[in-house]
């Protein structure tokens, strides 16, 4: 993550902060914690007294059903707050895992509540980010429930590239995507066999390359058409002055 306070970097994506607002954010202490790939960050049922932002790497929100199969419902990249909702909800209702090696910035709920109370515009922006997460969950439900395998995978690729670009991670059609085919299987509700075949088909059509922790999109218009992708649900920001 760029140097500076991680919450400041996040808020500055959507807001032009006043000096007083920026000072209040800088005053919030941050504990930076590293997690290894496939390490659990938080467990369903946990009661949190602090929330985190992703600084580096990829984390996910997931649930395990009876029989042990896991569904990944959301990916969290730089600047995302996987458990921001625990500021208001009593316990975590799903697991949070590190998909790749990650670094997270933890801040106490007490400090975040004080910030929200004293600077309501910043509180509204944090609220907004949880609403955007909700919009992404809705789109993932449509993706998994209704789109065919190639469109489903293409949609995920389109989303990851745009979100990465917004987070300052992607450019020129390429971005980090440090996930395995097993992870993709759990994101798209496809079997690993079908994930492999689908990726191969997208590669053969000259649409994407995927491997060594990176995603490259070679033909954006064609991929968007295949994916039935409309980016409005991402509510990509344009910074607003105080």
């Amino acid at each position: 993550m760029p140097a500076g306070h991680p919450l400041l970097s996040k808020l500055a994506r959507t807001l032009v902060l006043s000096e007083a607002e920026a000072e209040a954010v800088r005053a919030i202490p941050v504990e930076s914690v590293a997690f290894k790939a496939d390490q659990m960050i938080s467990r369903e049922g946990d009661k949190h007294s602090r929330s985190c932002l992703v600084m580096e790497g990829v984390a996910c929100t997931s649930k395990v059903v009876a029989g042990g199969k896991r569904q990944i419902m959301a990916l969290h990249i730089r600047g995302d707050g996987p458990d921001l909702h625990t500021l208001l909800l009593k316990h975590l209702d799903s697991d949070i895992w590190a998909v790749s090696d990650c670094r997270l910035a933890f801040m106490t709920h007490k400090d975040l509540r004080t910030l929200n109370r004293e600077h309501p515009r910043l509180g509204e922006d944090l609220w907004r980010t949880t609403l955007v997460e909700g919009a992404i969950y809705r789109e993932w439900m449509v993706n998994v429930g209704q789109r065919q395998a190639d469109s489903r995978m293409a949609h995920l690729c389109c989303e990851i590239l745009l979100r990465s670009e917004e987070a300052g991670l992607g450019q020129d059609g390429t971005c980090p995507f440090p996930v395995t085919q097993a992870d993709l299987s759990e994101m798209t509700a496809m079997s690993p066999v079908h994930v492999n075949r689908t990726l191969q088909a997208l590669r053969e059509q000259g649409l994407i390359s995927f491997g060594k922790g990176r995603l490259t999109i070679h033909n954006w218009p064609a991929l968007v058409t295949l994916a039935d992708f409309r980016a409005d649900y991402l509510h990509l920001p344009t910074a607003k002055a105080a």
Partner: protein
Amino acid sequence: MPRYLFTVQNSKPAPDTTGLDLAGPEEARSMAMTEAGEMLRDHRDSDWPTPEWWVLVTDEQGSTVCRITVSGTGGTV
């Protein structure tokens, strides 16, 4: 873990050159069932591209673990 190869024949043959490491033949059979279902789902809006589709699972020695065949014919209406 043993490795299993999933060769698929639908609109065109798709041999599996990498395979998948799984706990054993039961998991491989379960995976083949899922794959057959996903093949069908992906073609739900199109005509039958070939008279017969199949998923063949073999182990690394080439022995057959299972073969799932899907066939269908259109009616007169």
